């Protein structure tokens, strides 16, 4: 008797432990993934649903009120952007310069390794610590009180380690072959950094800037301690020495301290605006990335 007649198809599915584990794992990953997405989208939807329909120009543009109903958030939105822009203007060049230094110039010594650990540590320090540092520097040492410039600089310090780290990692991820190609054509180190390393690393760097910008826009602890919980109460106040409460701070303020009767509504609308703007920032920062990608594809 030959075995051939009775042999089953040698490619037939086996139901061993590995196959079952594989399916189980795939299922669990799918489930968790879907749950997470539904949760995040639900949260976004809830926040936007409560606030967005109530929005009107007078709220977005109006001045906040201390006692009566119907206060707006105009100066607070303005302060949010103003503080954000100043802090980015300070932290992007410094962070990128430090990141480029660490990636390209720093010698491989123990001291530099230690610096790197410090940068990493600073990146995960709670923001309130930077707030306290801001107080010590601006309110006590320099004695200028709670100001926009104090808040912006403290915020820049908060973002600096993250930007440094992201820049360093992105530059280091550029293939060595490209760097060698550039050097072999007779480029200087600066030319290579400017024309090859940064353009190729731009994707990662902008993602980093985007994350820090979003975080800075929503940051409250640092601002409360260094820029205060009130605004100067007028629109388009470009003075660096005005008190500079931002939207995120205002949200905290009306929810916990304010005595206006419609605090709940203001909080809901502010939250919606805050979330909306952070989403917008993410999209706006990605436009140069898309353009860059289209050019290099």
């Amino acid at each position, binding site marked *: 008797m030959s075995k051939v007649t009775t042999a089953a198809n040698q490619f037939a599915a086996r139901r061993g432990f590995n196959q079952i584990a594989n399916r189980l794992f795939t299922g669990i990953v799918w489930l968790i993934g879907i749950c997470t997405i539904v949760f995040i989208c639900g949260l976004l939807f809830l926040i936007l649903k409560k606030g967005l329909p109530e929005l009107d120009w007078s709220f977005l543009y109006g001045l906040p009120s201390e006692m009566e109903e119907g206060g707006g958030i105009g100066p607070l939105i303005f302060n949010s952007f103003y503080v954000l822009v100043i802090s980015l203007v300070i932290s992007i060049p410094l962070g990128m310069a430090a990141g480029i230094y660490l990636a390209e110039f720093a010698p491989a010594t123990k001291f530099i390794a230690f610096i790197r650990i410090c940068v990493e540590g600073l990146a995960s320090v709670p923001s309130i610590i930077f707030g306290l540092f801001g107080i010590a520097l601006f309110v006590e040492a320099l004695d200028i009180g709670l100001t926009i410039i104090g808040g912006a600089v403290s915020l820049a310090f908060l973002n600096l380690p993250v930007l440094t780290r992201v820049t360093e990692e992105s530059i280091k991820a550029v293939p060595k072959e*490209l760097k*060698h190609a550039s050097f*072999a*054509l*007779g*480029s200087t180190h600066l030319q290579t950094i400017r024309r090859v390393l940064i*353009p190729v690393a731009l994707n990662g760097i902008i993602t980093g800037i985007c994350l820090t910008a979003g975080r800075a826009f929503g940051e409250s602890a640092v601002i409360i301690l260094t820029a205060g919980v009130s605004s100067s109460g007028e629109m388009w106040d470009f003075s660096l020495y005005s008190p500079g409460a931002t939207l995120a701070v205002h949200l905290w303020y009306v929810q916990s301290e304010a005595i206006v009767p419609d605090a709940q509504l203001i909080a809901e609308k502010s939250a919606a605006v805050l979330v909306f703007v952070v989403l917008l920032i993410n999209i706006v920062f990605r436009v140069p990335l898309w353009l860059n990608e289209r*050019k290099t594809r």
Partner: protein
Amino acid sequence: MQSVASQTLIDIHKLNLYYGQFHALKDVTMDIPEKAITAFIGPSGCGKSTLLRTLNRMNDMIPGTRIEGKVAIGGADIYSKEVDVETLRKKVGMVFQQPNPFPKSIYDNIAYGPRLHGIRGKQKLDEIVETSLRSAALWDEVKDYLKRSALSFSGGQQQRLCIARAIAVNPDILLMDEATSALDPISTLKIEELAQELKDKYTIVMVTHNMHQAARVSNQTVFFLNGEVVEFAETEKLFSNPRDQRTEDYISGRFG
């Protein structure tokens, strides 16, 4: 065999190179003639790529490299203090093992070098791009796609693009570091044909682990072993009638 007594362009004299404690090149002395193809062959780790990279000082980038002896190009010592490495590398172009075009358009890849060295005018750049691509036998394939990313082309085309990019800065010498080892046989053949054409204008020094390639394309061949030059001869002579027993063992495939 070419009996034309061509002039020496690269003069290497008693060159020793160390990576930290490792003695990578030992007392290397040779004269490389101009407007010809010189091939470096030998087993992995024999120092052939290291020697190639001393010619455009790419070894400078490896920390712990120490060099003794003399390397002169056209009579000028390239390791003397007054040498500007950027100017040297402009005159000594290099093509690498892996095609490494920048993630930019074909045009910007070629124009990269000239722009580094201060050429700005569009008309001038257009001209350089076209002549470089023509010299690299790539113009007809890419002339309609100059704005397309270099990464969308095949490996063989990318490597010819890299050759065109090296030519665009008008070098005297072209170093090819196993430039075909990542390519398929047909692309390899095209690069070899290209090298044959280019040697009329450029001095080519190539490292290859492929002995047949050295035999096919080069005028002179140098055989390295453990950081030493074992034999330097006209290619035909080296392959048909090697002087050294070790050369014979290597080219007959007994080791390596």
